[in-house]
């Protein structure tokens, strides 16, 4: 379980997040929904300590991560996977090396065993092994997203974070990504935290939802309790959203 208490963050004196309280339960898909530029990416990066908060606490299974040293948190990262908005595939490595890098550096598995796991991961995300020798620049956006998910899955994490997982994808790829997020919960029992401004995606995948607006969480609860009025308020200034 992830617990967030009174989390604050500002950049150059400008408050981006104010007193955020959240509780993310085991094996649920938790979505943080909000308009662009309201601090969603900052929040998700704070949750995995890619950014440091100004104040407040974040704890994983009761352990406050701010008290962990860099080395200890490096160990913690083995339980966490992060899918970046930009996918962040290493562009100087081919798909095979992108997927096997973690296993090569952190396990003592043989080349063959690592290759087996790479193949398993790439099949899990619905891609063929013909893609393994390609470089990220040769892939479509949808393929890149699925390779990024495969790279995350191969770590066998407990928590997986998605930053705008459907951004820039066509409808076909959005459906595939939604299926993947669902199957990671169903088949692998992962706890998923999704940040999005896509209302359709939120309704499709979420167990529980937090609405983030103007630096604060304005609602946390079941997606069925979200009314049209709440969504209209969330995007009242004509801010960008997708249906």
């Amino acid at each position, binding site marked *: 379980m992830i617990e967030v208490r009174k989390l604050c963050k500002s950049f150059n004196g400008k408050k981006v997040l104010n007193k955020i309280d959240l509780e993310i339960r085991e094996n649920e898909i938790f979505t943080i929904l909000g308009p662009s530029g309201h601090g969603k990416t900052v929040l998700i990066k704070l949750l995995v300590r*890619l950014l440091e908060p100004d104040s407040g606490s974040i704890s994983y299974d009761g352990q406050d991560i701010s008290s962990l040293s860099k080395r200890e948190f*490096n160990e913690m*990262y083995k339980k966490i996977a992060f899918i970046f908005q*930009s996918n*962040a595939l*290493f*562009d100087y490595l081919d798909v095979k090396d992108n997927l096997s890098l973690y296993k*090569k550096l952190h396990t003592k598995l043989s080349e063959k065993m690592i290759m087996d796991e790479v193949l398993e991961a790439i099949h899990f995300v619905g891609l063929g092994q013909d893609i393994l020798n390609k470089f990220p620049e040769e892939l479509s956006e949808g393929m890149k997203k699925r390779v990024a998910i495969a790279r995350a899955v191969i*770590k066998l994490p407990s928590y997986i974070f998605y930053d705008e997982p459907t951004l820039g994808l066509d409808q076909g790829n959005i459906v595939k990504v939604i299926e993947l997020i669902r199957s990671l919960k169903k088949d692998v029992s992962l706890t998923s935290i999704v940040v999005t401004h896509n209302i359709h995606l939120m309704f499709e995948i979420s167990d529980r939802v937090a609405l983030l607006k103007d630096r604060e969480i304005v609602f946390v609860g079941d997606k069925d309790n979200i009314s049209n009025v709440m969504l209209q308020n969330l995007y009242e200034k004509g801010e960008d959203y997708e249906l």
Partner: protein
Amino acid sequence: MKKDLRILREQNRQKKNHTFWKICALIVDSLGQKTIAFFITVHEIWILFLSSMRSIFSIWFFRRQFVEQLYSFSVKTIPITTVLSIFLGLGALVQGIYQSNPFVPRVYTVNVVFKSLVIELCPIILSLVLAGKLGASLAAEIGSMKISDQIDALKTLSLDPVGFLVLPRLLAGFIMLPIITIFANFIAILSVFFASSVVSGWISPLEFLRGIQLDFRVFELILGSLIKPSLFGILIAFMGCYFGLKTVGGAKGVGKASTNAVVISAILIVIVDYYLGVLFL
């Protein structure tokens, strides 16, 4: 009327005075900000250097990246080094001959050309050129990784970006620059020999050898071929990595990082070269 004019003049004078002090305040403010930024940069460089030194024991873990960097610091720079050394040698020879008095024995000219090549020209010119080639490419590579979240992705894969990116490059620079410089020295001397002895017959091979042996000091060779290039190698790699990691924004930020890496490492190379000369010679 006169009184009004006086008041107006007084007001104008006060306004000018006010503007003057405003400009002074702005200058002081800007200088202060630049000074603070300078010390912050020095502090950050020091912290990054300490972090890389701390991760030195994990080099075995990053051996693959280290070997890749050794390759790009050596094999990829051989063509440019070869061309540069040939013409450095020839240029130094032409200058040597032109500047020498006809009554000066030719062995002395060879001696001056040899020493200036080995102690100064080859290490510094080569390092400046490689600062342009390697420093810029390191900064651009790491800068692009930074703006596309690849550095953060490394962290989420439990990899220390300093150990993974900075340390292998730093060690590769430290090890490979001296080797490339020794290679450059060899090519430069060879080109001088061919031009002066074999092709033009300006000096006999035996006299050429005597010119090299004249007042030969092993320490000078060590300074020019090992000490200077290893320090320059660290500077080039470190500045490339530092400015790469500091990249912000998009393509413009990457361009700025590359430019900064080249300019700052070139300036530091020249300064360090001067102090090494003062210290050791």
